[in-house]
């Protein structure tokens, strides 16, 4: 939270600090809209502060995010957000300029959504033993499914940490993990460096399209496990299956509220018929690991 507070003008910083009698750990997001009250988004509630940001505050935040050089973030701004020190993400909205019908830059900013990067170290522990194949000394493919905000990426991140660290006590060796992080969500890279906790054997391809990223990683980094977030397009699925044939373990996520919903999608057929035998269903309440269709492990989701 400290690196987020550093971005804010002093009066707003004080308001936020004094707004919470407890710590600020519960704050998930800070919404700053020019000329409208600032909102602190918690898990279940949204607190409105008695602070109306001015245009000067907007300039302050924009300059702090970019070290006085907002123009240098044009490439990031095409995606609508910037990842800052600590892995937190700042979403930006406002008036855009177009070139050939595509977004070129943001000309005027009206809102910031500062989303705190969160990691739940250990949340993958209950499932990892089930995914480890001791006879082959390798990890098994796994597909994580769930609706938005169900904790898929948080679990995926912890799986990457677990695999790259290994568990010598359980005779699980650490493995080389490659993360294709198309939206800077898994590793929350800032200047290409992961800001969250991972083991020593993690390589991240930040902001790289999944398709190219998987091929690049297989060619250059010889990974044992590849981690990819949010597959959906047919070409992504084909790339994942191709990667499986190279002997790499694939751990991927997909948006779907249930296995049934996933099965109803024609593009997913190939993936469900592939070598993937393990599925983790993520909900706001917790995680359930299925081998084929049998529940083998479950855990509630801690906040």
């Amino acid at each position, binding site marked *: 939270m400290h690196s987020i507070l550093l971005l804010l003008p002093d009066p707003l910083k004080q308001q936020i600090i004094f707004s919470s009698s407890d710590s600020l750990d519960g704050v998930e997001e800070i919404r700053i809209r020019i000329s409208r009250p600032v909102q602190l988004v918690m898990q279940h509630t949204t607190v409105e502060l008695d602070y109306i940001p001015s245009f000067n505050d907007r*300039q302050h935040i924009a*300059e702090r995010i970019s070290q006085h*050089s907002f123009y240098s973030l044009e490439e990031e701004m095409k995606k609508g957000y910037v990842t800052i020190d600590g892995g937190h993400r700042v979403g930006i909205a406002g008036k855009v300029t177009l070139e050939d019908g595509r977004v070129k830059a943001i*000309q005027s900013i009206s809102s910031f959504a500062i989303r705190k990067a969160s990691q739940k170290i250990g949340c993958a522990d209950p499932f990892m033993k089930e995914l480890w194949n001791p006879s082959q000394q390798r990890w098994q493919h796994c597909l994580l499914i769930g609706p938005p905000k169900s904790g898929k990426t948080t679990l995926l991140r912890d799986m990457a940490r677990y695999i790259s660290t290994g568990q010598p006590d359980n005779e699980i060796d650490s493995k080389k993990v490659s993360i294709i992080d198309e939206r800077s969500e898994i590793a929350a890279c800032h200047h290409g460096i992961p800001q969250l906790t991972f083991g020593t054997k993690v390589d991240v391809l930040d902001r790289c399209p999944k398709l190219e990223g998987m091929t690049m990683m297989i060619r250059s980094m010889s990974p044992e496990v590849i981690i990819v977030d949010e597959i959906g397009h047919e070409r992504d699925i084909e790339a994942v299956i191709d990667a499986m044939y190279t002997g790499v373990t694939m751990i991927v996520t997909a948006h779907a509220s249930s296995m049934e919903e996933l099965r109803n999608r024609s593009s997913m057929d190939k993936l469900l018929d592939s070598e993937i035998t393990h599925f983790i269903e993520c909900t706001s309440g917790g995680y359930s690991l299925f081998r084929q269709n049998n529940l083998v492990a479950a855990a509630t989701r801690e906040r």
Partner: protein
Amino acid sequence: MTLHWLGAVFIIIGSGLEGFRRSYLLSKRQQILIEFAQAFTWMENEIVKRQTPIIEIVQAQMERKGEVAKLFQLFYEQLTLKQLLLGEAWDKAVEQYFQSSVLLKEDLEWIRRIGDAIQPFDRQSIEREMSFIIDILRNRHLEARNRAIQFGKLYKTLGVMGGVLVVLLLS
């Protein structure tokens, strides 16, 4: 008698030096204006074409010699030590620089506007604003150069001649 001669020499030297000083200020002003115009053109290119961060640009400008480095040094201090925003930091730096500058107040007003020009969030707006100011500075440089050519020698001559005239009037 010797004292009279000595006084006369002092008057002529003093008056001549004043003439030379005025002439030097004219030539110095045009030289500084072109240095600033060149520095801002380079800065504009770095921002627009390479998206170089401001701090890197400022550090590079501080490596230059002369007045440009002086202003950018002050700007750097305001940005990093005082943690001011771009606009405020530039205004303060120009204000401090003005105290020791030979530039006219109007010249500095245009240089001050660079602070506003680098604030927009997109490169297109920055380019538009900076180009405008650079054009004005180049025009002011031309005007300053013409003044220096036109009045530089005149001031020197007037300085010496004025001294001689005073001596003649006093004798």
